[in-house]
């Protein structure tokens, strides 16, 4: 009875949709409607790019938080080099572009009826929807690491209160304490992020609590910008920072939050401060919308970012399986603009063009020591692939002046990209 009624409602909604929007692509008298779910680097970029590409498109951005808290540079907040408010942005300028901000949570997407359901049960009809939900923690994928454990052993991988919790724990620790950071297997948000964090925590310990020690337990044997990080670690933090790769027993198999213990196949590490960067998946709405595959992430068309699983739904940013592109803020912004151009064309019945995308990502190894990775990407064989011969990391033999220049460029990048998206 219950499911019968639901089916009836679904049919009704589908029929209404079909009756209201026949030949949608040609019906230019009413504005095409795009709903963007998630107001981070990907979603807010996409919403604004849609309006810039074609001001006739009616864009609604669904985002429950009144302010956005950015992850890039949040490692500097963790170690007291920066305040959290420098990471926070409102949606005032986004709204000023004529984008309707729906300050609530999207709880459903109906690809047949083409509507997004909101927390209060209201439905937002769309011609195309863009999901930019970022990541969700896979609670209990690492045994013992649930939401309660995160209050003792913060992940600080979604910026905000978790960032401040890890900072308070580091500040409160006595000199001589053991800090442990655990890094997950691929893929995860911000591939160089755990190693930037380890670097800055090592800098904090060296300058504030020099008798302390930092161990990084890694579920991998290789990581982003590895040679550059390790070169800098031996130069700046010898004896202070120890990286334990998978092959040396670095993979954490369980945690005990009450005692801040991280367990591997070979050892138990009881930490004074434990930062668990746990396994992740695409944000919840992606799963609800049926656009995640068995990996927990979202397969997409490399030119349009339309889901390979559900028509009319696009996925951008960390939630997407973007081939060679890393899960970074720059990549999210680049994907958002590509997706917006494709959506604008698809709404008019035009063929999307073949895009080229860029990623640039800086990491701080110390406040005046920056390193970078850059890449150029294009669709190839149904995936996003790196353009052969392009991209790469900072030179290994660069002088300190180059590292200092990259630290300055890193901050300039943050100011620039956040101004474009939120300014």
């Amino acid at each position: 009875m219950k499911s019968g009624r639901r089916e009836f409602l679904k049919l009704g909604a589908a029929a209404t949709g079909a009756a209201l929007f026949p030949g949608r692509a040609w019906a230019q008298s009413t504005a095409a409607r795009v709903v963007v779910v998630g107001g981070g680097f990907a979603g807010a970029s996409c919403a604004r790019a849609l309006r810039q590409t074609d001001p006739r498109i009616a864009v609604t951005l669904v985002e429950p938080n009144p302010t956005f808290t950015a992850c890039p540079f949040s490692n500097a907040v963790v170690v007291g080099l920066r305040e959290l408010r420098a990471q926070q942005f409102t949606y005032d300028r986004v709204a000023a572009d004529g984008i309707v901000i729906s300050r609530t949570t999207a709880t459903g997407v109906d690809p047949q009826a083409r509507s997004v359901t909101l927390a209060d049960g209201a439905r937002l009809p769309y011609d195309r929807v863009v999901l930019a939900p970022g990541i969700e923690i896979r609670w209990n994928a690492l045994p013992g690491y649930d939401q309660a454990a995160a209050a003792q052993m913060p992940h600080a991988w979604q910026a905000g209160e978790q960032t401040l919790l890890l900072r308070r724990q580091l500040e409160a620790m006595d000199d001589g304490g053991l800090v442990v950071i655990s890094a997950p297997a691929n893929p995860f948000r911000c591939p160089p992020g755990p190693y930037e964090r380890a670097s800055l925590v090592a800098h904090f310990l060296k300058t504030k609590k020099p008798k302390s020690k930092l161990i990084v337990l890694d579920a991998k044997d290789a990581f982003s910008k590895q040679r550059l990080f390790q070169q800098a670690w031996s130069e700046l933090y010898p004896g202070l920072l120890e990286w334990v790769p998978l092959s040396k027993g670095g993979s954490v198999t369980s945690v005990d939050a009450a005692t801040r213990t991280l367990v591997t196949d070979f050892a138990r590490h009881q930490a004074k401060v434990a930062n668990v960067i746990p396994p992740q998946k695409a944000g919840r709405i992606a799963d609800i919308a049926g656009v995640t595959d068995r990996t927990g992430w979202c397969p997409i068309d490399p030119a349009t970012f339309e889901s390979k699983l559900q028509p009319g739904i696009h996925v951008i940013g960390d939630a997407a399986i973007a081939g060679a592109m890393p899960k970074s803020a720059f990549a999210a912004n680049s994907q958002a603009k590509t997706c917006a151009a494709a959506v604008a064309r698809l709404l008019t019945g035009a063929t999307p063009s073949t895009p080229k995308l860029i990623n640039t990502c800086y990491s701080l190894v110390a406040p005046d020591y920056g390193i970078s990775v850059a890449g150029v990407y294009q669709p190839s064989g149904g995936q996003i692939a790196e353009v052969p011969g392009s991209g790469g990391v900072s030179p290994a033999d660069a002088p300190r002046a180059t590292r200092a220049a990259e630290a300055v460029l890193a901050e300039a990048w943050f100011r620039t990209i956040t101004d474009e998206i939120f300014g």
Partner: protein
Amino acid sequence: MVRFVAAAIGFVSIAAAVVASAEPPAGAAACSGCHPASTRVTSPVPRLAGRDAAAIVKAMQDFRSGTRAGTVMDRIAKGFTDEEIQAIAAWYATQK
């Protein structure tokens, strides 16, 4: 009916042309991740909007060949062909 469809197709191609003219060429939209779109932002990285197209082309070619040292632009320029560089430069030259 045939007439209606023909009119509709005509409209679509006009609409597509309008969109295409506003749409940056491949790769161009990504530049503003580092090159400020706004004059509000203080950055050592130059704005591209309104710059001379030939100067952008020369800079990209020099970064690509290695005759000009870059921090990340040497690595990024290697991902673009001459035709792509020219299209990007021409587009930025017309932006404000």
